[in-house]
């Protein structure tokens, strides 16, 4: 194989070779630009805070330490954040996938009466919304402030995902439905027993995007959830990474402000690594749905 590729390359005219080499270099540089910061952060997270600030990265292993990891992992707020993020993301994924898949079914049927009406109702929300304050006041009037439902329910029905699911349903051969009808299956039976089992790729894709989306978002949680015990991971990360306010207890035993600042900086590295581990574990699973995610990626990415 390799030999064949090589000869293919060798056969090219020289100007093409130059173009290809330049192209591969650009691509390679882009990959390096992606990977390099990640490697830097992984390595730096082990370096002693004072050394890191004064000399930068070092491979003198006597200067390496696990203190940042110990401090981050022994802090309860990080774990609270992880727990909440898992709960919210799982709940959101389940609810949104169920609601979306259900709604997409009638919308996929050509005989569904009222399709135009529902279509219009759903489409308008893609263009127009009430905006921040009216939504906030609604949540407040519903008594949902500081409740996880304020983060989960408002976005649970995604019109765009509904369209993707609907398109997928429409690609399923009609014979399947006719056969089911002849066998006496009603809508429920057809939908759950016949249609859904052949739609697993699109279900997995929608579930993946909803999970990642909820896991990564922070805005709704920031405005609706005030209690520390309800904060999802991203809000905990925000106070450490963005606001420079490590959780109390992470740095408070340090004597001087300078020491505290250096330690706080190092904690950021460890926090980034720790918070990325679930993602790294799930990435290979996500990978299987990249291709079916093409449509989803087009708009979301």
């Amino acid at each position: 194989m390799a030999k064949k590729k090589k000869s293919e390359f060798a056969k090219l005219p020289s100007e093409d070779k130059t173009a290809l080499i330049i192209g591969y270099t650009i691509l390679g540089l882009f990959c390096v630009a992606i990977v390099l910061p990640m490697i830097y952060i992984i390595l730096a997270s082990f370096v002693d805070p004072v050394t890191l600030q004064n000399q930068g990265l070092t491979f003198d292993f006597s200067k390496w330490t696990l203190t940042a990891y110990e401090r981050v992992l022994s802090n309860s707020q990080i774990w609270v954040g992880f727990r909440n993020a898992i709960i919210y993301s799982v709940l959101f994924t389940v609810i949104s996938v169920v609601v979306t898949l259900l709604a997409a079914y009638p919308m996929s049927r050509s005989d569904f009466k009222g399709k135009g009406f529902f279509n219009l109702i759903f489409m308008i929300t893609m263009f127009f919304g009430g905006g921040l304050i009216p939504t906030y006041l609604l949540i407040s009037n519903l008594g949902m402030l500081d409740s996880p439902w304020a983060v989960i329910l408002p976005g649970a029905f995604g019109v765009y995902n509904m369209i993707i699911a609907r398109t997928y349903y429409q690609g399923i051969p009609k014979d399947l439905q006719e056969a089911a009808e002849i066998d006496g299956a009603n809508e429920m039976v057809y939908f759950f027993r016949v249609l859904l089992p052949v739609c697993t790729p699109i279900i997995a894709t929608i579930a993946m995007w909803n999970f990642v989306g909820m896991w990564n978002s922070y805005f709704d949680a920031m405005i609706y959830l005030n209690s520390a015990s309800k904060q999802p991971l991203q809000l905990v990360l925000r106070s450490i990474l963005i606001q420079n306010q490590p959780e109390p207890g992470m740095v408070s035993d340090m004597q001087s402000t300078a020491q505290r600042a250096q330690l706080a900086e190092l904690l950021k590295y460890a926090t980034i690594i720790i918070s990325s581990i679930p993602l790294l574990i799930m990435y290979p699973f996500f990978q299987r749905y990249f291709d079916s995610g093409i449509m989803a990626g087009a708009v979301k990415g």
Partner: protein
Amino acid sequence: MKQEGIKNSNSKRGGNGLHSVLVYVRQHWQLYVLFIMPAFLLTIIFRYIPMGGVLIAFEEYNPIRGILGSEWVGFEHFQRFLSSPDFMRYLLNTLKLSVFGLLWGFPAPILLAFLLNRILSTKIKQKIQLVLYMPNFISVIVLCGIVRILLSPTGMINMLFGTSWNFMTMPSAFRTIYIASGIWQGAGWASIIYTAALSNASKDLKEAAVIDGANIFQQIKAVEWPAIRDTVLVQFIMSVGNIMSVGFEKAYALQTDLNLASSEIISTYVYKVGLLDGNYGFSTAVGLFNTVINVILLIAMNQIVKKMNDGKGMY
């Protein structure tokens, strides 16, 4: 059982008017009550009720007296922010961020797709794609955390150049940081759609072009570009339609007190003036103004796509 199936198909063909609709709804009540109702209720409650709430933009909102009981002020809020120099700055910041973002960010995934398409080994190509797609899964907070770490006065970038600039406090650096980190995170993933379109490019056509002695640039011009041209156009028009909807999350996470001169955009301003300062009416008016411009842009762009696509729009 079988009879019901036949009755079903009869009613599908049978007559029109209210009666047949009622018969249909009775026969297919599950479609309405079980399938579409949850989505419909969520949409009405969380999307349409707030739309009624935009009335706040035209009043001096008083939480005790409610939306209907508060004092009407007409277009006063709109006049106030349209005539304020601050607002013009936020509007310009928003537009600059999205226009320059489009200028740099739009071609990047197309270039990546062309380059990926030139890799002969499928295995290597897949490995590179895995690397390119990964940043897309990083959260905004972690991305901005990485950016802040790398750009801090003692961070990697300053170490490399032996300097100690504090980029996060420089208004002049904000847009570059925002756009470059956006490309870093999103260009790989955005290239997926072009890669897919490129894989549809006819192999025969390409082989013919190679036999005719076309060089790479001629091949791109004759075979590959035509295969993705429509996708590029639709993506471009959609991006233009979204030019006023610069997201809140990333801009807010990259803001510092010192770079506000270029980092304060409409969405962050709406948040601050509304939720932090409690000017509900004013904030809603600014948000409504932004939404209306956005809707106009989107509809206009959708019309253009329709014209190109023989009547088939994006929505």
